[in-house]
């Protein structure tokens, strides 16, 4: 099982899912209509490291964070 957490203004509780790669995570999240407006503008961290490759292989206990557009300062 991996955990998906949605940060900042997405306002959605964390979920758990089975997934072998980030491509699997993408496929499952695209089924959730509440995320349609978010996915194309969100970045992704795996275990708190920013990632940019759908083929990354996941292991049990991994945490995937979904980071919407930012505005610090």
């Amino acid at each position, binding site marked *: 099982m991996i955990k998906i957490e949605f940060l900042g203004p997405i306002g959605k509780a964390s979920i758990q899912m089975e997934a072998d790669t980030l491509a699997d995570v993408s496929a499952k999240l695209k089924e959730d209509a509440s995320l349609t407006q978010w996915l194309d503008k*969100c970045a992704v961290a795996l275990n708190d490291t920013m990632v940019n490759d759908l083929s990354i292989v996941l292991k049990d206990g991994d945490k995937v964070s979904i980071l919407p557009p930012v505005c610090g300062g």
Partner: protein
Amino acid sequence: MELYQGSLDTKEIFGRWLDEQASSNYGAYIPFVGTIRAEDGIEALSFDIYEPVLQAWFDRWQEKAQALGAVVKMAHALGDVPVHSSSYISAVFSPKRRVALELIDTFVEDFKANAPIWKYDVINGERMYAENRSTPMDGSGLLA
């Protein structure tokens, strides 16, 4: 890197950073102080921060700064920050001015683009995501 609940104590932070580096022999110290502007009827801005990714982002900048013989510092507010008070201070110390002037610019711009911080307008006590002023981080759209 320092995170505070509510407005920053700008003078304390400026002075403490100055004192910490008092004998480090840096010739240039450039702080950037961000203050909440009164506009669009807001009473405050409010901030969420994802600290683990912010810390990693900051640590990479500290390494970049060290490679230039410089040091970077950063403080940011969490939660509500009333107008005319400060939410953000970053700073560069460097032996020479050119490195310091270039580093504060790239550091602050990358902060705006890639620090995992979310901003909300506070109007009549209600918190509204400042979506139209927000920027997708590098690598956004991976899962779309």
